[in-house]
């Protein structure tokens, strides 16, 4: 039944290449989180606003992002936009898809956090002479980020795991893409992807541990 010899040495020799791929993975994850958080703040404000013209597009964005697969969103950026003559490279398509997805999920996280901030805080800020935008920026937003810090970091881990989908649109520089390239050259599928799995696991754990440490250091009263 088991007449297969594992060739781990090949996989270990390819480790530097894969670590370079892991850097690209991290880069996409960080960028997609930065874009996602920025858009999500605006979406959260728009969804809470009283104007229907602000609320409707924000709600549509969030519902589409949350009710379709992330892979579909990446396909949309990569293949779908081709209908309009816009051809995104795999890197940009992957980044756009994950950022879109992140923004949708983070918007709901932020909205939950906003609900936990008492309205009296804004009124106190306004009575000190701040404008609505300034009160939001200086009083509400820092508290919002604090309350939603750990869920946001959870989403960051999701973003890291989602970058592996890039290989389906021809991405070959991130960790999964590099692994797939090596696999296509050597057919040592199990060994290479097992290495990739270990690297992903370590990255995910490191991010979560770092988040816990930061939360513990910064958010003590």
């Amino acid at each position, binding site marked *: *039944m*088991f007449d*297969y010899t594992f060739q781990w040495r090949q996989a270990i020799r390819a480790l530097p290449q894969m670590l370079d791929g892991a850097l690209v993975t991290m880069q996409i994850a960080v960028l997609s989180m930065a874009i996602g958080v920025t858009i999500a703040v605006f979406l959260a404000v728009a969804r809470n606003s009283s104007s229907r013209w602000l609320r409707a597009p924000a709600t549509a964005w969030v*519902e*589409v992002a*949350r*009710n*379709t*697969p*992330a*892979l*579909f969103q990446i*396909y*949309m950026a990569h*293949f*779908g*936009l*081709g*209908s*309009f003559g816009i051809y995104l490279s795999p890197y940009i398509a992957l980044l756009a898809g994950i950022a879109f997805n992140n923004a949708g999920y983070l918007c709901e996280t932020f909205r939950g956090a906003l609900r936990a901030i008492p309205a009296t805080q804004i009124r106190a800020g306004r009575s000190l002479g701040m404008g609505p935008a300034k009160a939001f920026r200086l009083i509400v937003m820092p508290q919002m980020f604090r309350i939603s810090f750990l869920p946001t970091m959870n989403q960051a*881990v999701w973003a890291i*795991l*989602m970058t*592996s*989908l890039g*290989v*389906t649109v021809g991405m070959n520089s991130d960790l*999964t893409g590099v692994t797939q390239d090596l696999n296509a050259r050597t057919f040592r*599928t*199990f060994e290479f*992807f*097992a290495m*990739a*799995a270990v690297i*992903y*696991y370590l990255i*995910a*754990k490191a991010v979560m541990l770092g988040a816990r440490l930061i939360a513990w250091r910064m958010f003590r009263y």
Partner: protein
Amino acid sequence: MFETDLSLNDLMFLAKGAGVTLAITFFAVTGGTLMGLLFGVIRAQIKPWMALPLTFVLDIFRSVPLLIQLILANAFQAIAGFGISPFVTSCIVLALYTSAYCTEIVRGAIEAVPMVTRRAARSLGLTWGQDMTQIVFPMALRVALPSWIGLTLGVMKDSALVLWLGIFELLKSSQVLITRLQEPMFILLITGAIYFMLSFPIARLGGRLERKWKEND
């Protein structure tokens, strides 16, 4: 103005793909929920350090990308010569993936039942089994159901990844049509609409249940 080569036959092809997506989701969620119930009860019952091996293994399924899990499982079954089809492989992987999340939901829900309630049940002479089925289960269900619905929808969306193993589910079917008709935006919009129609009503139901049940707490 707008014309398309998409025929009714092609729509049926997409519908068949959606059927495969639903079938995979059904097997994965059924298997995953059963395992999740078992593991969740074990985790809530024994001490944390005793459950450490179980926690560690289940955590792996949540920290490694699903795509990589699928590729690894498929490669492993080929190496070991099990000769099982990609469909069964993906169902097994997705079931394990589901069980990892379901365990957390079940454990959280069981721990949300106040210990005094359970002691009261035991002191009335109920056995552990009776306590579990008659007291803990109904109370924990209210806590767990909204998250479980969310998990089910998540698995349905994640099941799109099985296309990498060559299974013709919804997204892969759309790719086939795109290759043939060269109308990527239109076909992807239909595909997205199908996913949305499958997911959105149930997501809404979950959200409503959550709000409704919170009022009574």
